[in-house]
């Protein structure tokens, strides 16, 4: 929206996130969950195929993971779990209903703090089951449309995390989705890979005239005679970046529609990543059409305080806490803390490196060096290899030795980075190389002698320097560095040279 429009309209976003949780078996039967790239319809039994008479048997681990997600997002946990049936008719839903939770979700009233400090309110997290995978085709010979259905995905455990409509920008929505994904991954609740469909984000978006609505008890209410604009739901979002792009597109589209004097209709649209647009799918069926009813085949599951405390033990330090700790205890910049804590693996790498370094220097310096090396050389290498920093094959203890040697002036930072690269490319042993360079440094003797030798051997450069061509000092520094195998400190070399040349 341009300035005129952002002055006129507020953007209101709620986000529904579905996450497949990490279990070995399905939500209501013992079929294995790992369906990715498996032969179609080979992970299926009478229960997940919806055959008459088959009874659902809930999965304990799935329920624990749902509770874990709730605890990590500051939710209240129900002490009784009820399931409901949500009816709709579609080939991917063999029973004609999905077992879900309607009135009483397992987790409710939580929040996640996003980067700008706002607490995004979570209304509920409920447990349900995934549907089958369907692909749509057209028959060559007859031109008839048809759908192929693979039930391997049918009844894989799925949790739905629903926010209240209190996100106010596309960027915040993206940030919130990122935090949810990080929590899911840190706690091994899910791999949450959006490309594989393990995590799906469906924003609902509306724009309202400024000052004409209020947010009360988790709802958007009109003020006075104002008629609220309906919301639009966007599906088929395949990446976290697309969450932001799709919302930005919708806000533009809806504000343009309103400015043209048109009325927005409540509808579902699909994100087309290739074109960067949303496309109309259907006008939305109202909630009543799902004809929810209590699931009669599953008893009420009682959750005790002990259950909750046992599950709570699985919570580890999460990115938000890590960011605060890195900044407060170690003076790490917010940006670096955010990047380093973005995955559990990189945070662990950083913390191990910091700990190892702290054997040789103080806590803060250790953290700063670790952060600088990770944010600089390590990420450069990781990006080049297209890997995570924990996977590029640099042993943290070796890297610590390298950093300590550099800090002790055994060699320059350039030399240290060169060694790091060579250890990856040629498999050089960093510890051995450090030892070699240490003894080399001892054998080449004092810097003064080398400087004298270089001055004697490079009369032309010396003459140039003395006649005012100050740039030739660089050449002489280079010569000294060569003779010291890069072990000298270039500033020391430069200063010693200048002193010596004054004589």
């Amino acid at each position, binding site marked *: 929206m341009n300035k005129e429009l952002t002055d006129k309209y507020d953007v209101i976003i709620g986000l529904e996130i579905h996450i497949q949780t990490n279990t070995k078996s399905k939500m209501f039967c013992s079929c294995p969950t790992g369906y990715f790239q498996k032969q179609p319809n080979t992970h299926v039994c009478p229960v997940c195929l919806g055959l008459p008479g088959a009874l659902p048997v*809930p*999965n304990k681990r799935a329920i624990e993971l749902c509770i874990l997600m709730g605890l990590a997002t500051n939710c209240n946990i129900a002490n009784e779990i009820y399931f409901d049936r949500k009816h709709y*008719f579609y080939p991917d839903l063999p029973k004609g209903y999905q077992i879900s939770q309607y009135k009483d979700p397992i987790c409710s009233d939580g929040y996640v703090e996003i980067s700008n400090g706002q607490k995004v309110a979570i209304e509920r997290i409920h447990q349900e089951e995934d549907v089958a995978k369907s692909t749509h085709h057209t028959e060559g010979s007859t031109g008839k449309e048809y759908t192929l259905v*693979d039930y391997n995905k049918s009844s894989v455990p799925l949790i739905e995390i629903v926010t209240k409509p209190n996100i106010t920008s596309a960027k915040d929505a993206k940030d919130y989705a990122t935090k949810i994904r990080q929590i899911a991954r840190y706690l091994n609740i899910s791999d949450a890979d959006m490309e594989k469909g393990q995590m799906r984000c469906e924003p609902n978006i509306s724009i309202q005239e400024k000052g004409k609505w209020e947010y009360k008890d988790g709802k958007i209410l009109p003020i006075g005679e104002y008629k609220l604009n309906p919301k639009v739901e966007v599906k088929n979002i395949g990446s976290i970046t697309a969450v932001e792009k799709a919302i930005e597109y919708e806000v533009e589209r809806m504000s343009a529609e309103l400015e043209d004097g048109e009325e927005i209709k409540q509808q579902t649209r699909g994100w087309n990543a290739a074109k960067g647009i949303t496309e109309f799918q259907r006008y939305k069926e109202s909630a009543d059409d799902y004809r929810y009813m209590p699931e009669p085949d599953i008893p009420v599951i009682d959750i*005790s305080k002990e259950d909750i405390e046992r599950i709570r033990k699985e919570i580890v330090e999460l990115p938000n806490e890590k960011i605060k700790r890195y900044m407060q205890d170690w003076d790490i910049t917010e940006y670096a803390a955010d990047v380093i804590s973005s995955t559990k693996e990189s945070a662990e790498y950083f913390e191990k490196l910091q700990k190892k370094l702290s054997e040789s220097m103080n806590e803060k310096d250790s953290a700063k060096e670790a952060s600088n090396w990770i944010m600089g050389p390590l990420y450069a290498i990781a990006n080049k290899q297209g890997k995570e920093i924990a996977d590029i094959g640099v042993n943290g203890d070796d890297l610590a030795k390298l950093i300590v040697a550099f800090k002790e002036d055994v060699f320059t930072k350039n030399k240290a980075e060169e060694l790091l690269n060579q250890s990856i490319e040629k498999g050089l042993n960093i510890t051995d190389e450090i030892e070699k360079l240490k003894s080399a440094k001892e054998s080449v003797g004092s810097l003064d002698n080398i400087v004298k030798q270089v001055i004697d051997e490079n009369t032309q450069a010396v003459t140039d320097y003395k006649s005012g061509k100050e740039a030739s000092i660089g050449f002489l520094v280079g010569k000294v560095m060569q003779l010291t195998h890069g072990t000298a400190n270039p500033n020391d070399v430069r200063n010693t040279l200048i002193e010596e040349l004054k004589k």
Partner: protein
Amino acid sequence: MKIDVKHIAKLSRISLTDEELKKFTPQMEGILESASVLQEVNTDGVKPMKGHIKLEEVREDISGECLTQEEVLKNAKYKEAGCVKVYGKVFGENQES
């Protein structure tokens, strides 16, 4: 008690003729009517009477045997590439029946 049988049929992707609608509507309304006496009971604050189990009694997460692909597809009218094949448009307007 009025119900919109046409709407209910549509949600279930069942097409009914006007004649069938005329026949079924009073039948279904009658069923609801007789069940509706239950509505007269005050259930405020009364929880559903259902069996309870403890979380520790819920099925452990262990994967087991499945049907073969052949068995899964046995009852499908049409099949293709190991999948159940369903004719119709994306949102289920079944052109078959």
